[in-house]
């Protein structure tokens, strides 16, 4: 079982690598941000698999922090992209 979990983590790393190609290529800032967001979620999944693989559940706290802060960079990005830089894309007409 344990070997399977680690193998699954390797596959996830590979999918993260694929998503990184989108970060590199763009073309827009939004594309890069989306790629990073997907890599972030993949990272959460990898940590969960590592924790289950090692039976070290303290590692879950890392996944908890990552998912708690998952939207941070994106929120900062959309705010910076709003009209005055402090707003929200929903406010704009």
């Amino acid at each position, binding site marked *: 079982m344990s070997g399977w979990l680690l193998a699954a983590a390797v596959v996830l790393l590979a999918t993260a690598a694929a998503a990184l190609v989108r970060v590199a290529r763009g073309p827009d800032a939004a594309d890069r941000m989306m790629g990073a967001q997907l890599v972030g979620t993949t990272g959460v999944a990898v940590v969960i698999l590592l924790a289950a693989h090692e039976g070290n559940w303290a590692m879950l706290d890392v996944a908890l922090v990552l998912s708690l802060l998952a939207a941070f960079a994106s929120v900062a*990005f959309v705010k910076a992209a709003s009209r005055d830089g402090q707003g929200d894309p929903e406010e704009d007409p």
Partner: protein
Amino acid sequence: MTGAIFDIVLCLLILAVALAAILGRDLFGSVVFFIVYGLLVALAWTRLGAVDVALAEAAIGAGLTGVLLVGAVARLRRGGVVEPTPPRPLARGAQMGICVLAAGLVGAAIAGLDPDAAGLTATVAQNLEASGVGNPVTAVLLNFRGYDTLLETVVLLVVLIGVWSLAEDRYWGGRPGLRQHAKPGGVLATYGRFLPPLGLLAGVYVVWAGTDQPGGAFQGGTILAAVWLLVAMAGLVDAPPVTARRLRLTIVAGPALFLAVAVAGIFMGGFLHLPPEHAKQLIQTIEAGLALSIAATLALLVAGPPQRGAR
């Protein structure tokens, strides 16, 4: 075998992302790669079993730094600075030469090290009982080398004063950063209401758990800072003016409490001496104070110097 493959793939990814962040021509792309780099390094620390470090890296690298850098790029672009001018080829070549040389020397030095040298791990384990806590990292940070940590928490205070002193004189007395706003009842505002209870729970849990398992004031404080920043970005809260007494008390409370415990130790056996029978309570008290001050300081660091009028 699978473990080795995992490690190799992760290392290659980290290297590729680091190179992409440095060599990329698009500034925003570099920032995104840097955020991903923080995430991958957190994975590496997790894999190595250094959960304390992974927590810090996840909160700082993947969380706060991202917000800071994304905002910085946006400000540069608004200010008209598009891309940094590349250094001259000669300077660039010299820089690369020095870096390669230094890396080679460090590599040679590491190759000559004894891979089985355990450092002070055994000594820490022997003294763990007298430290009052079960997490060896916390024992080192708050007890064996508490003096380092005391100075480090003061360093955070220095940095905040430094950032504040970049304010324009006319804005002194105003609130940090610019006023953030979002559509009332919109997605951001809703997320800003949804997150705090869970974020507060997670932050306090990580501080509390730190005495006996990975976590502690720094990691927990960072989580709290990040949650506050998100709520601020959703336009729901605003920082108090930089001259507010309450705010200033919050940023010095942790270091001051730590210093007070250190000086009180003089009467109990020496500077920073924590008597083993009370060490656990003292460490928890210090950590609680530090978490509060670290949270406030980090949040204010990201918010920046005051940029609007005093009233």
